[in-house]
């Protein structure tokens, strides 16, 4: 079995963001970056298949600047076999451009599975995995929370509004991974050592034309501070009234 996992390097979300002077990007100064969470579950999914079948090859693909090498090496430290950096001077917003570059790399790779996270924590478009599926002309299942592969067939569970959906698909296929599928392993210390010796290939990304661009970014308005309207049962009528008239949630 040969599996590709496409991962994105994203900023740590537990910080207060600032907008850069150019107005259409986040100020990256002082930000910490790590593998997108959804993508780490995709890596874990691939590694679990490899745990069961050691002959499995897991290839990590990431598009971005050379900084993505650190993120790729984290996946290698977790246990993946080799990495490919599709080099750009920045990660574009246009999901189709990214998908084209990834598809060009994956097309002739002979992969049985191509895994993505459902979406990235920073841009939250949730389109790249699906677009790659389309460009490669492969079966696509998005937002998977359970996965089983046996032979050249797979089955998956998807969480949908108010229920669950069970799907089957033939391999090769493109899958995007949702929360709940697994808990990503930490790179063991031996893995961190081993990652240094694993191959990491750098190639130019074939992005092609970019049609969608971000023109401006704004921070959300400051949230009004909470209010305590009273205590115990006596406060309930007033609370209900405010929830109806002011918050308009009832």
């Amino acid at each position, binding site marked *: 079995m040969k599996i590709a996992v496409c991962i994105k390097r994203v900023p740590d979300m537990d910080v207060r963001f600032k907008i850069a002077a150019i107005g259409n990007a986040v100020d990256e100064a002082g930000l910490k970056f*790590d593998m997108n969470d959804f993508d780490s579950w995709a890596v874990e999914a691939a590694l679990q298949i490899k745990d069961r079948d050691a002959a499995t090859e897991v290839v990590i693909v990431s598009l971005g600047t050379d900084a993505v090498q*650190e993120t790729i*090496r*984290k996946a290698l*430290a977790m246990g993946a076999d080799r990495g490919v950096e599709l080099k750009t001077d920045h990660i574009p917003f246009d999901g189709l451009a990214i998908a084209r570059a990834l598809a060009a790399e994956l097309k002739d790779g002979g992969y049985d599975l191509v895994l993505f996270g459902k979406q990235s924590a920073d841009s939250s478009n949730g389109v790249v995995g699906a677009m790659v599926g389309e460009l490669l002309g492969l079966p696509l299942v998005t937002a998977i929370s359970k996965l089983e592969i046996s032979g050249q067939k797979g089955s998956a569970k998807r969480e949908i509004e108010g229920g669950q959906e069970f799907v089957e698909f033939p391999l090769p296929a493109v899958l995007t991974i949702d929360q709940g599928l697994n808990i990503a392993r*930490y*790179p*063991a*210390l*031996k893995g*961190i*050592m081993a*990652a*240094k010796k694993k191959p990491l290939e750098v190639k130019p990304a074939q992005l092609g034309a970019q049609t969608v661009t971000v023109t401006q970014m704004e921070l959300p308005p400051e949230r009004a501070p909470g209010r305590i309207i009273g205590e115990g049962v006596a406060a309930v009528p007033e609370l209900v009234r405010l929830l109806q008239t002011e918050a308009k949630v009832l």
Partner: protein
Amino acid sequence: MDDSFYFSEQHLAVRDTVRGFARDHVAPVAAKLDAEGKFLWDNVKGMGELGLLGVPWPEELGGAGLDLTSYIIAIHEMAKVDASHAITISAHTTLGTSPIVKFGNDAQRKRYVPLLASGKVLGGFGLTEPSAGSDAGGTRTRAEKRGDRYIINGSKIFITHGGVGEIFVVTAVTDPSRGTKGISSFILTKPTTDLETAKQIGIGHDESLPAMKGFRAGKKEDKLGWRSSDTRELIFEDVEVPEENRLGNEGEGFTNFMQTLDSGRIGIGALSLGIAEGAYEQALRYASERKQFGKPIADFQGVQFQLSDMATEIEAGRHLVFHAAWLSQHGKPFGKEAAMAKLFCSELAMRATTKAVQIHGGYGYTKDYPVERMMRDAKICEIGEGTSEIQRLVIGRHILRGLTA
């Protein structure tokens, strides 16, 4: 200090792994283990799997094959969340395993280090005795040669992993007429006191290690801090130890453990620094959230100044610790710097945790906030592996030697 020249990408990767493990597996149980004084068996397993119980040992011996700085990072990062977990790594690695790696022969290394480095069993170091603490040269435990074995009699006190551990490096007098040059060290083995637990979780016990007759753990200490670390007496009653279990030559015990303690000080420095930093991070967050007089208490200069002092001293402590590690790793003399790092950071741990409790007010004095535990955990750092007074003696010896040379 992430971008500092002390750290490579690999070091930061080690830090992230330990940070993740500490956040997900240690933080949720630390308060409970502390309250119950229970040893952290479940996490020993997890730490072993990640390679945290053999960070600096070569891969051929079952270690992770990383450098000293990586090891120091692991202790430091773990101590930010829980000192008992950090001392488990440190006592097992520096005290229990390093003497065998450094002073053992090939057969001893191959026999014991893989078991220790993988975390299969825990190790410890028996030096301190009831009447030989700071003055460890005053060892009374006796090893008498009989044919091809030694008969060991005596006892040790305050031994980390005394109960839970199975492999111990122990000092004993082989020649009473030669003072410190008559002290030797031996590898002793016994089954863990928690056999049931060990069997259940599949770690902590190895059938192939002999249960040496007459060697057992004594009373478990009920301590102020480090409460989920296991500290006990070791008792030796006519323990027969084969000659092949002697570590190094007769009479080398004293100089060997002095060397072990030298490098151990960097680890205790890092552990102390971690406690200080953990407490500081808690205090910083609390001060920005807790409101009095209509604003976060962090807005008051009186609170800010305390946080600034903590942050500054922690930054200084990091330089001491990671510089000493750098020196040691590059084969340069590091004894003075290691003692300075241990002295400064252990006293810093007390200052910083006390301030952190102060910033938390009454809440900080309760077990609802981790700073209460951190303050109790800090005190031992000024005592264990050489008291602050002894560190000052060591530093004094180094700086005076500089004068007379």
